[in-house]
């Protein structure tokens, strides 16, 4: 590296800074656009949730069964969309009695409402690799607006993974049993893995 000795230190650092900035900019600009396409949500995704309780702690768990798809519009991220269907009977908390309670007509009423459906209505880019997703959430026959924040976590030849977070007010869907001991807000913490379809 003979040139290094001939360049002034300030010039070297300036070039390095430009080079890094350029690389980062290219990566940011391309992160979502390059991932354009249709994806099927993989069963290996993780749909985690938690509900706080008075005095600290709470209930945490996940859902084992779900399906869905999303489409990333490379030219206009805002025209991307997502459809997601959750099977509430597949709820897991590590305590069988809690799961029975959640499946009963106290909360999910899975006998009458076997599916919870989210359909996006708008996607707004919030950063180089993140987006705000609004949509309609239907549970127990009631539909209300719900919003989630999605961040690109990983992308490879096989697919793409988003970290998705959001909060849902459960009383809107007639699932307010247990309040105020258990919070009315359900925190969703999900890893949605999509494979190109």
């Amino acid at each position, binding site marked *: 590296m003979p040139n290094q000795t001939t360049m002034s230190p300030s010039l070297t650092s300036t070039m390095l800074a430009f080079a890094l900035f350029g690389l980062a900019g290219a990566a940011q600009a391309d992160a979502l656009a390059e991932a354009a396409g249709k994806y099927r949500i993989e069963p290996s995704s993780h749909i985690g949730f938690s509900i706080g*309780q*008075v*005095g600290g*702690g709470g209930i945490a768990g996940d859902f084992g069964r779900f399906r869905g798809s999303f489409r990333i519009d490379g030219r206009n991220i805002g025209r991307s969309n997502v459809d997601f269907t959750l099977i509430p009977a597949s709820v897991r908390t590590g*305590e069988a*009695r*809690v799961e*029975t*309670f959640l499946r*009963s*007509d*106290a*909360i999910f009423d899975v006998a009458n409402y076997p599916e919870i459906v989210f359909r996006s209505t708008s996607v707004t880019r919030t950063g180089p690799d993140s987006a705000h997703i609004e949509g309609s959430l239907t549970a127990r026959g009631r539909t209300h607006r719900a919003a989630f924040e999605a961040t690109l976590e990983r992308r490879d030849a096989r697919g793409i993974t988003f970290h998705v977070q959001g909060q849902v007010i459960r009383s809107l869907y007639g699932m307010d*049993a*247990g309040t*105020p*001991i258990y919070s009315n807000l359900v925190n969703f913490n999900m890893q949605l893995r999509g494979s190109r379809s």
Partner: protein
Amino acid sequence: MLRNRDNCYGMVAILIHWTIVALFVAQMLLGLAPRWVASMAQQFTLIQWHKSFGFLILALALLRLVWAALNTWPRRPAALGRGEWLAAKIVQGSLYALMLIVPLAGWALVSTSTLRVPSFAFDLIVIPDLPMSRSDAAETFWRVTHQWLAYATAAIATGHMLAALRHHLWLGDGVLKRMWPAWGNEPSGEDTNRREPARR
């Protein structure tokens, strides 16, 4: 009269006694009711009310014991023989102990339950769990213990009530009146001494 006297209980003791009676009857119903309703949401609500009233009974029982310690106890009514008096004291002592032990057993039940449902008395105060280890076995043990102690309390309290009614309706003495809110119409010495004028 707020304080106990030597021939009858004061208003404070009377008020706490009858409040605990009412709460205990409500507690038995609230404790049994979840098995009578199908809705798990209603079962949950009923159990939370049961826990709230349980903590209230425990607080009142402690208050009653403190009050009892600070007051004179009414003397043995002349209407009662020594055997009856001893039996009455054993029954009353058992009820004093049970009104503490039954709520404590309920508290142990929620403290050992693997459900970990917090105790939020009347949706106002978080009551911390007792420092006990949680397991299905411990929860079952305390559930059965709490349940049978409550049944035993109901049986002893029924005996206590029937004995009081026997004195009032059959023997016609003033024993029941000692624990009745008299509002200035306290039993006289003659009432309680009707069967046996000689005092102890």
